[in-house]
C-alpha cells in the first residue's frame, strides 16, 4: 500500500498550525478517507465535518492544497504525488476547531431573505401546472448542496470581509431559484440591491469555478438578477415614469 504525506491544520480560534501525518492510502482514496484514517489511528480528536461522503450533502468543505474542495470528492491520486497534501479549514469563516468552521452566518442570511410565496393553486387538489422547460431553469439552482465553497472563494467575503452587507453567491443562487420559480409571486429585487448587496459582485466567476455541483452561478443566477436590479432601479425611462407618477424610488 502506498503512503502519502498530509499536512493538516489543527487548532482553534486562538491559533493553530499544520501538523504532518504519514498515511497509508488505498486505491481510490479521497482526501476525506485519509483524514478519517488519521482520525482513527493517529489523532482521535481531529475535528472534521462530514456526512454523506458522496458529494451530496456539502458538509466536508475545506481547502485542499489551497483550493476550496469537497474532501469526499477529491481523489488523492489526482493530487501531485511529489509533495505533501495540505488540508486547511475554509478561510472565509471563523475557525471552530481544526477543519471545522463556524458557518452559522450563512444560515442567518438565508433566514433574512423574503420567503417563497406561491400564487393560488391551478387545480382543486392544491397543485400547479408547470412546464418542464420552465422548471429546468430554477432546478439548476436547486442542485445547490450548501457546501459554501462559493462563499469561501468569493473575494468580497474572503478578502474584504463584507459579511455585513453582501450575501454571497450561495444566497444569490437561492434568490434566483425563487425569482425564477414559475409560481412564486415574491419580489426580492429591492432586497437584492440593498440588504443583500449584489452590487458588490464584480463577476469574477470564481464561485462558478469552485461549485462542485457545476451550477453556472455567475452567468445563470447573478447576472440575470443584476439585470433585474438595473432594470428596476436604474432604467432611465422607468425613473421618469416613477418621477411623473410621484412614486419615488
Amino acid at each position, binding site marked *: 500500500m502506498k503512503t502519502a504525506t498530509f499536512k493538516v491544520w489543527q487548532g482553534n480560534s486562538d491559533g493553530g498550525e499544520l501538523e504532518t501525518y504519514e498515511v497509508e492510502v488505498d486505491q*481510490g482514496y479521497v482526501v476525506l478517507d485519509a483524514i478519517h484514517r488519521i482520525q482513527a489511528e493517529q489523532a482521535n480528536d481531529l475535528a472534521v465535518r462530514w456526512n454523506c461522503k458522496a458529494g451530496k*450533502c456539502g458538509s466536508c468543505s475545506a481547502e485542499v492544497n489551497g483550493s476550496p474542495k469537497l474532501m469526499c470528492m477529491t481523489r488523492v491520486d489526482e493530487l501531485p504525488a511529489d509533495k505533501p497534501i495540505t488540508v486547511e479549514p475554509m478561510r472565509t469563516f471563523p475557525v471552530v476547531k481544526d477543519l471545522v468552521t463556524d*458557518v452559522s452566518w450563512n444560515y442567518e442570511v438565508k433566514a433574512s431573505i423574503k420567503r417563497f410565496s*406561491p400564487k393560488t393553486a391551478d387545480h382543486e387538489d392544491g397543485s400547479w401546472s408547470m412546464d418542464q422547460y420552465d422548471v429546468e431553469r430554477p*432546478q439548476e439552482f436547486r442542485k445547490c448542496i450548501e457546501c459554501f465553497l462559493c462563499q469561501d472563494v468569493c473575494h468580497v467575503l474572503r478578502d474584504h470581509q463584507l459579511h455585513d452587507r453582501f450575501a454571497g453567491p450561495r444566497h444569490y443562487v437561492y434568490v434566483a431559484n425563487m425569482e425564477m420559480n414559475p*409560481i412564486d409571486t415574491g419580489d426580492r429585487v429591492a432586497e437584492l440591491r440593498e440588504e443583500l448587496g449584489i452590487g458588490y459582485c464584480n463577476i469574477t466567476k470564481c464561485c462558478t469555478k469552485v461549485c462542485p455541483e457545476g451550477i453556472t452561478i455567475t452567468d445563470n443566477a447573478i447576472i440575470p438578477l443584476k439585470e433585474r436590479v438595473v432594470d428596476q432601479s436604474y432604467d432611465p425611462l422607468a425613473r421618469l415614469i416613477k418621477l411623473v407618477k410621484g412614486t419615488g424610488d
Partner: protein
Amino acid sequence: MTQHQVLEYDVIVIGAGGAGLRAAIEAATKGASVGLICKSLLGKAHTVMAEGGVAAALANVDDRDSWKVHFADTMRGGHYLNAWRMAELHAKEAPERVRELEGWGALMDRTPDGLINQRNFGGHAYPRLAHVGDRTGLEMIRTLQDHGIHEGIDVHMEVTVSKLLMDGGRCAGALAYDRELGRFKVFKAKAVVMATGGIGRAFLVTSNSWEYTGDGHALAYQAGAELVDMEFVQFHPTGMVWPPSVRGILVTEGVRGEGGILKNSEGRRFMFDDIPPLYKESTADTPEEGWRYVIGDREARRPPELLTRDHVARKIVKEVQEGRGSPHGGAFLDIAWIQEHIKDSEDHIKKKLPSMYHQFKELAGIDITKEPMEVGPTTHYAMGGIRVDPDSQMSTTVPGLFAAGECAAGLHGANRLGGNSLSDLLVFGKRAGGYAAEFSAENTPVHLQDEQIDLAVHEALSPLERDPGADVGPYRLQYELQQLMQDKAGIAREEGGLAEALDELQQLKTRAQAMGVGGSREYNPGWHTVLDLQNLLTVAEAVVMASDARKESRGAHSRLDYLDKDPEWGTVNLVLKKGHDGEMELRREGISEIPKELRKIIEEQG
C-alpha cells in the same frame, strides 16, 4: 449540581431530516413552541441522500393508480407484517403531502401536461415516484428546511442528545451536548418527537453516514419504549463496490427504473432465473417485454430487476457466491445498453441520472453512459424501530414520546419498497408533529429532577475521565462492531453465528463502557464516537436477538438454517423491551386483525 443551560419548549423534535423537519413544521403550525435538535448542520441529514423519488399515488402518469393499489403494494412488499393502519394512512395521505411541497418551493420533474412526473420503482405496480432527476431527497430536505426556517422553530445545530429525561413514566425532555464546546443543554418539553433515522453504522458496508447510530431507537428503548421488527434490516441491492473507499455508497434504484439491467460475469441477465411466486404474474417473461414496461407500455409487465429489494439483494449475493460475480464481488448494473433503444442515450442518462453519472465518473472513473457499474448489497434502512400508535405515532408504552420516519416502525413490515421512506417521513412526520402539539396542549408542564440530570451529565462525561490508552480507541471498536454485525447478522444469518454475535456483543459492551478518550470537550469526534457506540450496541443487540428468534426467512431477514417462509410466523411481530433487571426482553405478538374492507383491497389487487 452540574452546569447546564435549560431550554423549555412545548415540543422538541430530535433529528432534522425529512421526518423531523416535517414534524417541527406541523407542531409549530399548530401553535406549539418548538425546538428542533439536529446532530449535524441543518439540511445535511440523510434525507439528502435519497435519490429515486417519493412514492405517492398521484396517478399523473398512469390513471389506474390509486391509494388502494399503493396500499396493497406496500403490504405485499412488507410480506404482510406491516402495521396495516399505517400502510392505509400512508397510501391515502402521501399524494397531498407531496403536492403541498410545491407550495413550499419544491420543483419536481413534469409530465408533458405540466403535472408532477412519476417513475417506475421496484414493487410499485405503476409509475408512482415523484422525483427530481436522481436528487429527490435533496429537493425535499431543502424545501422543508427553507419553509421551516420561517415557521418560528428554534433550530439547535450540531447538538446531540445523550439521554431522554423522564417525569415519572412520562417523557419530559432530553439532555444534550453541543459539538462545538461540549456544553450541556437540558431540553424540557411536554412532548418529544424522535426522528433520528437509522442504524446503518452498525454494519461495515453501509450507505449511512456517521450520524446513523440508532440514537432514537436506543434512547427510546432505554426510556421504556418498545422496539418492533428489529430483525428486518434492508440491504439495498445496489451499493458501489469498487474502489474500496466508496464501498457501500448508494446507487439509486432509479437506474433500474430507467431501464438498467443486472448481469453476471457470464453476461447473463440472472434476474430472469428465479421469480418469487408472489410476483410471478406481474413480472415480464422476456427482456423485450421488460423494456416495453420501462417505456410505458401499459400492457407490458415489469422487468425482474424491479422486483423488491430483499429479493434482488439475495440474487446478487447468490451470483457472487456461486462464482459468477463481477471482479470486485458484485454484479454488473448496465444502463448503457439502452443505446440499443434510445438514440441520444448518453444525454438521456445524464439527464435522468445526473448524480449517478457524476458519482461514478469522479469516484470510480467509470462512464455509466458507456460501461456497466459494479454493484452489491449495502446496509440501507431499518424497517424496525420504535413501536408506535399508527394514528398518533406516540410510543405504545411511553406517554409524551412520539416517533416518525425511519426510527419508527410499522409501515414497511419485513421489507420497504423504494420511495416509501420519503412518503413515510412526510405523512408520519406531519402526524407525529401534530399529535405532539396536541399532547403538549392537553397536558400539564413537566418537572425534572436535578439528580436525573446530574447522572446523565456524569455518564456523558465519563469517557473523557478514563485512560484513553487502555484499548484500541473508539473508531477501531466501532469497526469491530461493524465487522461482527456484517459477518454474523448481515444479509445471511444462522443460529450459530447469531449466538456468537450475542456473546461478542456483551464483550464489546464491556469494553465500550470502559473506553476512555483523549482530548477536550471541544469538538471532539472521538468522544462523540464513544457515546454513539453505546446506542449502536443497544440496537445491534436488538437486531441479533430478533434475528435469532425469527426462525424463518421473510423479506429482508434471511436465515440459512430456515430458508423458507413459515406461515406461522406470518402473523407475528417480535417486540423488544427493557426488562426490570435491565436486560433486553423479547416477546412475540400477533398482528391485529385486518379489517374486512382492507383485506378485500389486498385480495382484489392480487
